[in-house]
């Protein structure tokens, strides 16, 4: 009698099996994609919405695809080789190139660390707390959490932090956008007239530039290795990347929509210079809750990214250049590792406490370094994922390669364009 249930049951069973597999590997891809929505990202999305309304929403789908393509390569390399990206670059491309990549990585990541601490400071200043209290506390918290925690416990904290991005989705709903127009703008082709507009093009470049960065690839691959994901579990791990990228860009979509529905609609096209300014600008238009959600979201995102950037830099550099690394080592066993990690935090946070803040220079320096190093990293990744000796049967397929080279080419052109249009 119940024989008709069999296929249903077996479907449920395999489905459940897959879900269990997915839950076992979820983490690295999801976390990496979310950290991408850091202080700088949130500001760029807010500005895009305020300045151009819904008309930039079409970028979300291509950006998501590009993000998935690049992240998937990093995560696959980690699972198949069991080695970090800097290890592989060193082994395949030699010492000199590795050294160059690592130095620029430190510079660009230092700039990012400063930007994250600035995000932490400005978001809490909205609640009236002085940065001279916030910044040292946040720096100490970050340092301690990473040094005292284990991979598993930190991953749980980070996954929770990822969930807090829902703040922005709620804020987007509270802004009462025109859903139909927003959805329509997401799937339609961009207007040719818009593309000829310099400011519009500049914003498109900014959106791409903020979404793919070198450090993400190093961090993602390292955490896939750290989590012990192997080629066998990789199919599930790919879903971790895809879901993470989609969630991230859904959040970005809501940030743009929230600002478009309020700021753009009422003619406030320029929000200032930071994510905190966006929250302030929203206050009179979108209401107290949207303001609070934006401020809290910014704090969460900045603290989250500030926790990941220094440690991931220290790991990448030490592995690539052959210094002892790892939190299981004592300070005197891995001095370069701990010093680099500590200095990135102390100096990154310290810059914000200087009376005459050279924030602009730090940010320019970081963007230049980013533009210099990103092409190398992406091309290295493509060469490595096509190396049969390294990847075995997991090399890129022909179709994937076409998409990947195209993505990488566009990203590189966009990043360099951003550098030269400043």
């Amino acid at each position, binding site marked *: 009698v119940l024989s008709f249930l069999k296929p249903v049951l077996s479907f449920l069973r395999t489905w459940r099996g897959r879900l269990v597999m997915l839950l076992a590997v979820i983490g690295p891809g999801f976390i990496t994609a979310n950290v991408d929505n850091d202080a700088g990202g949130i500001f760029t999305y807010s500005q895009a919405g305020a300045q151009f309304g819904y008309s930039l929403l079409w970028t979300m789908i291509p950006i998501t695809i590009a993000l998935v393509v690049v992240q998937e390569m990093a995560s696959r390399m980690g699972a198949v080789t069991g080695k970090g990206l800097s290890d592989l670059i060193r082994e395949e491309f030699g010492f000199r190139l590795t050294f160059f990549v690592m130095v620029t990585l430190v510079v660009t990541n230092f700039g990012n660390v400063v930007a994250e601490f600035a995000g932490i400071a400005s978001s809490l200043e909205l609640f009236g707390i002085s940065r001279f209290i916030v910044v040292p506390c946040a720096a100490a918290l970050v340092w301690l959490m990473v040094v005292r925690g284990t991979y598993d416990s930190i991953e749980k904290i980070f996954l929770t932090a990822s969930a807090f991005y829902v703040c922005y989705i709620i804020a987007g709903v509270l802004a009462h956008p025109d859903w139909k127009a927003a959805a329509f703008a997401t799937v339609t082709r961009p207007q040719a007239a818009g593309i000829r507009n310099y400011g519009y093009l500049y914003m498109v470049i900014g959106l791409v530039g903020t979404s793919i960065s070198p450090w993400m690839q190093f961090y993602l691959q390292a955490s896939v290795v750290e989590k*012990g994901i*192997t080629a066998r579990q990789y199919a599930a791990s790919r879903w971790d990347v895809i879901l993470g990228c989609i969630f991230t860009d859904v959040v970005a979509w809501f940030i743009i929509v929230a600002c478009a529905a309020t700021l753009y609609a009422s003619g406030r096209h320029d929000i200032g210079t930071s994510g905190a300014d966006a929250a302030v600008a929203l206050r009179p238009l979108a209401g107290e809750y949207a303001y609070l959600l934006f401020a809290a979201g910014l704090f969460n995102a900045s603290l989250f990214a500030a926790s990941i950037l220094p440690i991931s830099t220290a790991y990448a550099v030490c592995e690539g250049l052959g210094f002892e690394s790892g939190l299981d080592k004592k300070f005197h066993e891995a001095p370069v590792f701990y010093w680099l990690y500590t200095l990135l935090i102390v100096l990154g946070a310290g810059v914000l406490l200087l009376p005459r803040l050279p924030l602009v220079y730090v940010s320019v320096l970081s963007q230049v370094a980013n533009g210099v190093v990103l092409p190398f990293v992406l091309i290295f990744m493509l060469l490595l994922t096509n190396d049969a000796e390294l990847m075995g049967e997991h090399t890129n397929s022909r179709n994937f390669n076409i998409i990947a080279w195209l993505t990488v080419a566009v990203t590189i052109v966009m990043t360099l364009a951003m550098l030269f249009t400043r």
Partner: protein
Amino acid sequence: MSLVALSELLGAYVRDADGTARGRLRDIAVAPQDHPTRIAYLIIRIGEGEHLVPAASIKALGPSIRTDGDPADWDTYTASDGVLLLKRDLLDQQIIDVHGRKVVRVNDVEIDSTPINSHMLLNVVAVDVGARGAIRRLAKGLVPAFTLRALLEKIPPRVIPWQYVDLLETDPARRVKLKIAYEGLSKLHPADIADIVEDLPPAEREAVFETIDEEVAAEALEEIDPDIKKSIVESLDSDRAADILEEMDPDAAADLLGDLTEARSGQILKEMEPEERQEVTQLLEFHEHTAAGRMTTEFLSMPETSVVDDAIEAMKTFEGGYEALATIYLTGRAHQLVGAVPLVKIATSSPAAELSGLSERAVSCPPDTPQDEVAALFDKYNLLTLAVVDEHGRLAGIITADDVITMLRHRN
């Protein structure tokens, strides 16, 4: 005798007997089957082709390489598994520094050239893992050679002599051809081997455990982080995994198998010797977090009528871990536990002394005791071992203090 670094040589012109530059150095080969350190030949690029220059024809090794050979005799190079290529296989790769007990990355390779009669003897003597090799490679071609040499003299070298280098090779066939046996690694303390293995990528971990002696592998495996331990056993052949598990303490082997999928642990059990398999299967049935799950069935028990000499004789043939011998248990009728004699008392008593006279009250617990209570008993009675007895009062196994320490550490 003079030392030269691989990075100084790569790209150097190779000259024939007339002094004409014929090609540039691409790589240097060692054939471990002929000699462990001797350089067998150079690989040079001439136009588009790659050729072999036999080491015997080399007159000088330096910024320019002189030979007395006839380029017509230089065979075309074809890739071979049986040789170690210093640039491809060693430079920038990870190796095990056996002396320093860690995994390090190679910055440069040092080659010694000693003139013997009319030619040079070339040997690999050390790998450079410090700043000297790193700076040499960064500055090569950017700073004049003599300035660079003078600068590098000032940097203290960090080199590992070649005999303390264990290479990492994941291809088993190639490992045999290159004679990589992890001899140096095998001589380290199991806990040090475990630390080193934890720092390696998965494929290299597997390579080490495929190669080293089973007994060493078993001891090292017991010290490794549980997650990594599990993935190593999953990746090994069932046959090899079974060989290693047979050498482990039955309780540790059972814990490990309990972490694997049923299918996988079944495959491994099938390959084990019947005697070991039975012990492990029994232990597998107990819950991991109880006394029974933590106990080992390898212990020493004597009839209560035995004397000290009997106990010493029994110890000589005992196959389990030494930690299990901290206490010798006494059993009465129907194998019931009646007493416990500390090892120290046996060591300090005359051979004819009766064990029952030395015996203390044996502290014991039933098999289903939760592990927290086990730890509490160790604490309360200051135990080195704890007896686990079944419902008939018979000795089923013992728990040793080292297992309790492991248990407590993993709980946090």
